[in-house]
C-alpha cells in the first residue's frame, strides 16, 4: 500500500503534461511523470519514492509513437517493453529489454521509465548509447533534441519538469550486427551481474555495459582496446579490463572480482559473435 495520497493527472498532449508539471510544482505538489508506474508503486510503498501528484504520460500520442521516417526510428518513451519486443523495430533493443524483469513486469515497464528510473541498471538505454541516438525532451521552453551521449551521464540529466518524449535512432544503425548478453547471479531471473550490449558499426565494435558499476555507460574507455586488430582476443580483453576506470559493484548479486571474471568472458563472447 502506498502510504500517502497523491493526485492523478492524465494529459493528452506533451504541452499539457509539461504545463501541469509546472503548475503542480509551483503548488508544492512534488509531481512526477508516470509511465509504467512500477517503480512509483513498489518504491512508493516503501516511502523510497514520494510524489504529491503523478502525471500519466501514456495517453500522449508522441509518447506512444513507434514509427519510422526516411531516416529515423522514433520510439515514444511510454511504450511498454513487451510492445518493443513484439513489434521489434530495433532488434538490439528488443533483445536487451526482453531480459529485463519478467514478462508481467515488462507489460508495464516502459522504455522511458526504465531509462529514467531509480533502479540503476537502466538496461534499455544501452542500445541508444550505442547508436548515438537523439532524445527528444519537452520542457516549459518547448521541445529540444539532444544527443543521448551528452545528456545521459550515469543518468538522464533532465531539468526539473522536463519530460522524456521519444528516442530517435538513425535507421542505418538498425541493420548493423549486434549482440546483447545478460549474465545474472544465477539462472534466468534477476538483476544483471553484467549486461553487455555491443554493436558493430563498419569495422568498429561499440560496447555499452550495465551492472558493472552503479550506472550504465557507453564503454568508450575499453572500445579502443577491443578494436585493436593487431592483438589477439585475449590481449584485447586484458587491455580492455585494464582500461576500465569505474568503481566495480560488490553486492548481493556478486563480488567485484567475480564481476570482472564475468565481464571478461562476456567480452570474449562479444568478440566471438561480432568478429575482430
Amino acid at each position, binding site marked *: *500500500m502506498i*502510504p*500517502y495520497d497523491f493526485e492523478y493527472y492524465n494529459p493528452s498532449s506533451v504541452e499539457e503534461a509539461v504545463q501541469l508539471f509546472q503548475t503542480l510544482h509551483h503548488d508544492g505538489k512534488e509531481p512526477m511523470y508516470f509511465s509504467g508506474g512500477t517503480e512509483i508503486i513498489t518504491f512508493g510503498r*516503501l*516511502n523510497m519514492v514520494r510524489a504529491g501528484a503523478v502525471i500519466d504520460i501514456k495517453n500522449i500520442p508522441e509518447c506512444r509513437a513507434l514509427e519510422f521516417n526516411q531516416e529515423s526510428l522514433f520510439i515514444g518513451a511510454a511504450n511498454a517493453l513487451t510492445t518493443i519486443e513484439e513489434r521489434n523495430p530495433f532488434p538490439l533493443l528488443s533483445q536487451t529489454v526482453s531480459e529485463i524483469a*519478467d514478462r508481467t513486469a515488462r507489460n508495464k515497464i516502459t522504455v522511458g521509465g526504465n531509462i529514467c528510473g531509480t533502479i540503476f541498471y537502466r538496461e534499455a538505454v544501452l542500445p541508444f548509447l550505442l547508436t548515438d541516438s537523439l532524445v527528444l525532451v519537452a520542457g516549459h521552453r518547448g521541445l529540444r533534441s539532444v544527443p543521448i551521449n551528452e545528456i545521459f551521464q550515469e543518468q538522464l540529466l533532465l531539468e526539473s519538469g522536463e519530460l522524456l518524449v521519444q528516442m530517435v535512432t538513425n535507421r542505418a544503425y538498425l541493420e548493423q550486427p549486434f549482440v546483447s548478453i545478460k*549474465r545474472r*547471479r*544465477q*539462472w*534466468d*531471473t*534477476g*538483476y544483471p551481474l553484467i549486461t553487455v550490449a555491443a554493436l558493430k558499426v563498419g569495422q568498429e565494435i561499440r560496447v555499452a555495459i550495465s551492472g558493472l558499476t552503479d550506472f550504465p555507460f557507453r564503454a568508450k574507455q575499453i572500445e579502443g582496446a577491443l578494436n585493436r586488430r593487431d592483438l589477439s582476443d585475449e590481449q584485447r580483453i586484458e587491455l580492455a*579490463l585494464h582500461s576500465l576506470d569505474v568503481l566495480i559493484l560488490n*553486492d*548481493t*548479486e*556478486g*563480488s567485484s*572480482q*567475480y564481476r*570482472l*571474471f*564475468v565481464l*571478461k*568472458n562476456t567480452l570474449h563472447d562479444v568478440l566471438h559473435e561480432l568478429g575482430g
Partner: protein
Amino acid sequence: MNIIGKSVIRKEAFDKVTGRAKYTADELSGPSLHARIVTSPYGHARILSIDDSLAREITGVRAIIVGSHEFPLTGEEIRDRPPLAVDKVRYYGEPVALVVADRYEIAKKAAELIEVKYELLPVINSPTEALKEDAPILHPNLMSYEKIGTAYPVAHSNISNVTKIRKGNIENGWSQSEVSVEATYGFSPSSHSAMETRAATAEIKPDGYVHITTSSQAPFMVKRLMGIYFGIDIGKIIVETPLVGGAYGGKAPIQWEVLAYLASRAVGGKRVKIVYTREEDLTTAPCHVGLEALVKIGCTMEGVITAAEMVYWFDGGAYSDKAIDVSRAGGVDCIGPYNIDNVWCDSLCVYTNHPYGTPFRGFGHSEVLFAFERTMNMLAKKIGMDPLEFRKRNSILPGHTTPTQVVLNKNTVGYLPPCIDRLKDLLDWDQGEITEVDDRRIRVKGIACSWKTSTIDTDASSGVIITFNSDGSMNLMSGVVEIGTGTKTILAQILAERMKMDVEQIHVKMDVHTQTTPEHWKTVASRGVFMAGRAVLEAAEDVIRQIKDVAACVLRTSTEDLEVAFGRVFLKDEPEVGLMLKDVVYGYKFPNGNSIGGQIVGYGNYILRRMTYLDPETGAGQPGPEWTVAAHGVEVEYDKRDFTYKLVRAATVVDIGVVLNHKAALGQVMGAMSMGLAFAGRETFVFDELGRVMNPQLRTYRPIHYGENPRYLVDFVINPVENAPYGSRGVGEHGLLGMPAALANALSIAAGVELNELPLTPELIWRTKGAEL
C-alpha cells in the same frame, strides 16, 4: 470403488482458480483496526530509547506498544523470546514496537515516525562465531528460562539444545574402517517465501473470549500456547484458520498471533488485523535455519560403512523456538537411509544474530542430508565405487536399526533398493555420469538418497467428525489445515472409498474453527493423511455401525447381515432388500409416523502409538511412526568456462506405500523438488557485518521461477504400509530432501572441485576453483 489412486480434483480448486478463495487477510467479518510493526534495523543492538511522541500525535492512532518485562516470554521449547524486543534487539527485522490505528496507512505512517535509538553490539553471524570463547552470550539468562518442551541447553554458552546420538561403538567403527572421508559444510538461513504472507486478526470480546483468525499450520497450538503465555482459559480461546496460501513449515510457529493479541488488548479488545509485508514475512517471521556441519564416514574397501561421526551446528538464529526441534530431527536422522552399526552425532542448536529458525519443508533433513550425502559421494569416489551401488549396498532395510536404535520392519521403513533401481532407469544411469555436449558444455548427473521420519509430539492426535445431509451425502470435519497440499480432498477420497460413495457426495469443511472442528495436532510433518486418514476410517466405522443399528431394526435382521455402500444399507445376500441412506441418517420414519434413530454423527480419532522421548545421553527412542525413503537425481548442463549451469532433469523416486491421488502426489513431489533446487541453487539471506539482511525483498531474494525449472521425473515404488490408511506413506516433503545434495554432487563432478556450501551459484564454483580472473 476405485477412488483411491484417482486424480480427484481438489475440492477447493474452483475457488482458487477463479480467485474467490479467501485467506486470513481477506476476512471481512466486520470492522477492524490495523497494526503495523516497527522492526529492528540491526542484527544486535541495545535499545537506548524509543520516542513515539510524533507518532502519538497522528489522528487515528489508537495505541503504541513497546516491549516490556510485563509481557510473557514466548517459545515452544524454551521461553526465551519477548514478543516485542526488550532492552536489546537480537536480529534484523525483530519487532520493536507495534502501532494500532484506525486504518493501515495511519498505522504505517505513525510507525515511520517512531524514533528508536540503538547502540550497536557485536554481531554473531554464524554458529562458528557463536561458539568462540570470546563470543557475546546472546541469552545470559538461558538456564533460568522456563521450558515448556524438551531442551538441553548448555550454561554460559550460545547453545540452546544438544541432541546426542550414540549407536554402537564409534571406536570399533573406526578400527574396522579402511577408508574414510571428512569434510565440513555450511549454508546461511533462507526463507519459505510462501505466496501468502503471515497474517492474523485478534479480538477480545467483552465476555473474555479471545477470537483469533490466523494463517497458521497449527491453530490448535495457537490456542494452547496463547493460554500458556497469557493465562487465558483455553476454552475461551477460539482460533479460526481459513485456507492457507503456502506454509512449508513457516506457519507452524506462533508469532503474528501474539502481536495481534497484544494489539487488541491495548485497544480494549477491539478487533485488530496484522498482515505482514513481504519484507516482514522474509525477515521478521521465523525463517529456514542455517547449518554448519562436520561429517566423517568410514567404510571397508568393499564399501561397507562401519562408522559415521557428525557434528551439526544449526543456526537457530536469535531465539530457539522451533529450531530446537529441527536440530533434534537432524540428529534423529543424522545419517542417510543406511544401515550403519556405529554412529556418533552431536546435533546442536546455536543462537546467532539471525532471524530465528523454524521448520522448513523436510524438517532438518535436506539440511543434514546435504552434508551427509556429499560425504557419501566423496567416499564412493575414494573407493572407486559407483555412488548408487555404494548406497544400495548400505541401504537400511527391515530388521536393521536406526541411529536412535529403533528396530525397523517392513511397515516402518520403505524399500530403498527398488527406488535406486528405478532412479537409474529414469536418469539413464548406465549411460554414465558425464556426457559431452560440445567443447565447453557437459551434462552431468548427481544423485542422493534420503529418508525421513516425522519427529512429532509423542501424544499428537487427530480427530474427525462426520455428519450427514438429508440427501444422504456426508460432511467431513477435520482439524487438518488446507495449506495447499490437497489433504482434505484426499481425506474425502478415503471416506468415499470406505463408504463406497461418490467422492462428490463428500463435503469437506475447508476452514478450521477450534470450537467446532476436532483437533488435528498440527498440519506439519507429512502426517495429515496418515493421522487424519486413520481418524476418518474410524469415524466411517462409527457411522456404519449406527446406520446398521437403525437398518437392522427396520429390516428385521441382524447388523452382521448388512452392508453399507452406494448410498444404501442393504442385505449382503439380498441387495435389493435395503434402505436409502437418506432415509436412515436423520432417523427412520415408519409409515405411521413413529421414528427411530435420529441424526447420525460419527467420530474417529487417531493417536500415534508407542512414541517415546529420546534418551538425553544416547538418543535412543522411538521418534516417529515410520520412515519414508527416496532416491533423487539431478542432471545439469554445465559450462566449463563460465561455471554456469542449467537444470536439465531432476528425478525423485519415493516408496510411497500406496498412491492415494496420483496427480496430487506428483504435485507434492515436484513442488518439493522445486523448492529444494531453489534452496540449493539460489535462495539464501545475505548478511552484512551488522547482521542486516541485504536482500530482504523478492527483487533480490529470488525463489525459482517458471522456466528455470528442470524437467521433473517422478515415480513411486509401491509397498503398502499395514497400519496406514489404504497403505500410504507421507509424501509432502520428501521430494525436497535429496535435491541440495544431488545438485551439489552433480556440480562437484562437473566442476572437479568439492562444493560444500549452499547456494550453489556460479560465483561459489568460481571461488572454489580458485577465483582466477
